[in-house]
């Protein structure tokens, strides 16, 4: 089985978990690298290998707060790769999470959904309540 890929998130790069054994496929946080090609190269390489022998079901989660335009290209590249799974007997599904008041991430999800040819669900979530310490 393919070794998992884990990239720890930073202030401007997302957290990536690609783990077929535990069936976790997720990109979360901020994706703002100026050189998105460099950041996403290992992700693309991992997926390229994965789609040749994928799990019977692949549920891929995007939980992004922000992403820049060069990341949107890379997100598309990931989705185009995942489309290859749908052409086999295996199943693939995308979950696109957005914070309920975040219209921008929601709209981006709707646009991307209209381009790709795989099941793609938009899911809203409530922002965690931040309690500020009393001064």
């Amino acid at each position, binding site marked *: 089985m393919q070794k998992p890929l884990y990239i720890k998130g930073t202030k*401007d790069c997302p957290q990536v978990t690609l783990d077929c054994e535990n069936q976790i496929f997720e990109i979360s946080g901020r994706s*703002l*690298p*100026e050189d998105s090609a460099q950041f996403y190269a290992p992700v693309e390489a991992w997926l390229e290998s994965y789609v040749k022998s994928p799990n019977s079901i692949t549920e891929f989660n995007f939980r992004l707060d922000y992403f*820049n335009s*060069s990341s949107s*290209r890379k997100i598309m590249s990931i989705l185009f790769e995942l489309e290859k799974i749908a052409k086999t007997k295996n199943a693939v599904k995308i979950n696109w999470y957005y914070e309920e008041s975040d219209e*921008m991430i929601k709209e981006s999800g709707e*646009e991307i959904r*209209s381009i790709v040819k795989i099941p793609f669900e938009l899911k809203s979530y409530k922002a965690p309540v931040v309690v500020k310490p009393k001064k």
Partner: protein
Amino acid sequence: MSPEFIFETFLDLKKDYLSFSYLGNIHDEITDMLIQLSESNIDHVAELSKMRNKVSFLMVESFQNIVRHSGNIPVEGNLPKPSLFQIRNIGATYYIASANVIPNVKTEMLKNRIGRLNTLTQEELKSLYMEVLSQEQDGIQRGAGLGLIEMARKSGHKLECFFEPINDEYTYFYLQIKMSGKKNPSEDEINLTIESTQQLHSKLSGENILLLLKGNFSQELILPVLKMVEENMSSFVNVHDKNTFFVLGEILQNIPKHSFVNEEGVKEGIFFMEKFGEYFAITSGNYVENHYVVDFEEKLNAFSKLSVSELNSLYRKYLREGNETEHGGAGLGLIDIIRLSNCNFQYHFQKINEAISFFTMRAVV
């Protein structure tokens, strides 16, 4: 930098709730700081709060557009002006501007591309975006104009550009994005032209300014700036030790300590970091209430007559005795600024009316 220049610039930016200009090496590491900076003040206008993410997105796109196009250009030192990144919030309108050097051969292409985007409706921009996004990557150049399309789309206004030739090879490319939180902003909120941005850039560059911050001075505003300077110290020239950072922090935090609070509850102030030969000059300007001025001026006058060793003794004494004034300072912080600047410190009070004066201070480190 004279007290007159400081006050004049402060008045030029009078309508700005937030004004941030960064001149110098533009690189990717300050992206996160820029988001924090804009988010620190965006909640003051309800209409802006709703578009928080769009403003952050546009800042990042604009900023990275500079990084993207800055390959193969002369180093900053050989240019008449350094690159610029600027954010200005006036009323419910946000302006994001950049200026960077491009080879002359790119000028026509950019002019045409922006001109074309400006003729498109929102629907047409969306179609263009989807078309570019849905193309497989092979054969598409990095960028491929997606950033510009997104800027035009998300701002909801025409992109403004301006080209200022430098020589036979290079040109300054100015790009300004506008975002309005209101459908019909009042007239004074929308009159910031790209030409005025270009003039401000020249003015700041003429004074060797690296960083300008004008706004409502609170800890939320100060922290991202401190973080940015700390993370970028190595990119500024000849930083001998940590003194610059300490003085900068003290001066920034000194503004809200002494500042007059206006009727909107705002502690309005201005802050500059400037290249001064081998050193840096750190300058602040803010209103103070006149009834504090006599005591404040007396203290500053007394401190500025002391030598560094006398200031060190006084500092220890204040520290031991906890000698703080009722106005929350005029003590340790100021002594620290003067001694760390090796007594290279100036201050000035300009009476504005019966209630307030404009106070400026400047330390070279």
